[in-house]
């Protein structure tokens, strides 16, 4: 990492503040799921009214997405000049 040209410190530069944000996100998620205790959500599908359905679906969908994409890299990833290499052989 090259040293920044300016020495100004930003709030996000402090790792403690990033941790604070991370904890804040957990708290926000906890509060949001708490709403399900009080609000009976009207849904088009019966299964979607289950407590925490959308939260759980969002979380696990994203984890599955990233893990699957990581595996896909093994099959799909090539060096950056993959398509350029044989252009010069023409």
């Amino acid at each position: 990492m090259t040293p920044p040209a300016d020495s100004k410190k930003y709030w996000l530069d402090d790792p403690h503040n990033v941790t604070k944000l991370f904890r804040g996100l957990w708290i926000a998620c906890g509060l949001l799921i708490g709403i399900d205790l009080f609000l009976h959500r009207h849904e088009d599908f019966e299964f979607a009214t289950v407590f925490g359905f959308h939260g759980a679906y969002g979380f696990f969908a994203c984890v599955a997405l990233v893990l699957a994409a990581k595996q896909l890299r093994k099959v799909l990833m090539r060096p950056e000049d993959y398509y350029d290499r044989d252009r010069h052989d023409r």
Partner: protein
Amino acid sequence: MTGNFPVALVLILGAVLIPLLPGLLRKAWMLALPVIAFGYLLAIPHGLHGQVELLGQTLTLMRVDKLSFLFGTIFLLAALLSVIYALHVDDTMQHVAGLVYAGAAIGAVFAGDLMTLFIYWELTAVSSVLLVWARRGEHSAATGMRYVIVQLLSGMFLLAGALMHWRATGSLEFGHIGLSGTAGLLILIGFGIKSAFPFLHNWLMDAYPEATPTGTVFLSAFTTKLGIYALARGFAGTEELVWIGTLMAAFPIFYAVIENDLRRVLAYSMNNQLGFMVVGIGIGTELALNGAVAHAFADIIFKGLLFMSMGAVLLRTGTIKGSELGGLYKSMPWTTGFCIVGAASISAFPLFSGFVTKSMIMSAAAMEGMTFNWLVLLFASAGVFHHAGIKIPYFAFFAHDSGIRCQEAPRNMLAAMGIAAALCIGIGVFPGALYALLPYTVNYEPYTASHVVAQTQLLFYSALAFAVLMRTGIYPPELKSVNLDSDWLYRKAGWGFVVTFRLALTETRAGLAELIEARRLAIADFVTRHRRPEGLLMRSWPTGSMALWVMVLLLANLAFFYLR
């Protein structure tokens, strides 16, 4: 006003004047063109205008109805925003190409028959490729060539289908076509290439990230949405589209997670958004069609905004690779803010434009009882937040500090982004204005407590997943790489086939030539052996031997008669 003069020609003919105008006047003229065109469009009553008789067919140059008016409006708005964004560029070719391209797309939207549609369809291809070539490198030259070949091919499918449709129905009118018969299938393939159907999609990820920073903003608005308009006009309610759209919404997000070029990530997420629209068109109910075209409207603005913010980063830093960027919020705070608004809109956060449009498609799918499709679309909704909503702003503006310190984007770029961001929020907060423009009456309330809570939960837990994966180090890092997609078939396999085939052909020809040469030598040898001066057939014989042989023959004759 009669409206016989096509709105498209205001932009196309106006663009021709651009090179003739000096400095400031040129900028004023470019800004005025979309405004003049829109004022003119407002003055035209709904109906058929500009009808021309040609070869016994009536061509309709201007069909103004709710659907074409909506797309005409958003295309003119996109043209204006793109012009503002590109105002600082000192390259006349790009300005002319951009406005002709916008004009062609608008002409196609107002085309009332398939022949007029075809002509404008091809003009969008030819004018837009100039925005790729305007980057002026060996790489963009090759990419542009691939792009324009695919685009013109789409036009060929449309033309072939249109001619068959004409023979079958006796009319060239561009109304509902449907998937009955070969004509419908050919036209659907033509539209499908423009709308980036799976396996016909790769021109999008190939070409858009290779255009100039401002060119990509133009490109993102028109070609694919023209495809969506044409599908909504010709194939509403075609059930196959539900499945095509579901696949389109799902598979590009896997690519988006591992892609390093951030403008290419946006191209993948555009493909995913087009999937939602195609599903809406496939369902074909009033709610679904309203949702599809409303989402196209919102998408042009928020996707344009995202491409603008990434274009500004590319302009200022010279790179758009996630692996090389980070910490730019310190240098480009305004661009960061506008990018986040675009990210929130595409992710469909409540109070942003995506929320009020995408939810119509989701609800329409649920009402038709399409459980599986609905679940896939919900997965795609979480995924789009993950890769476009978080990944784009995170890797460009936050993540680890790359040490890059640059200037904030030029003022005209900030102005364009500011207007687009305001529109994103405006549509999200006051959806009624957009709903009033939709082709069917809207009886839909996006802001119910259940819906807001459900969507917020989905998005926050997706963000939590990102944060957890990031902090545990499971999230795949940005790597310098390219990922194989269907363009591999023609860029690698096809090319390999050509190379191998050419090699085989050369070798066969060489082998054949060798064989022929050997045979030729053998024949020549045989001929010369018998016909050379001392050869068997060319030898001179003494007269005595001739007399001897005649005597032998006569004796043989005598003996024959004597013995008989």
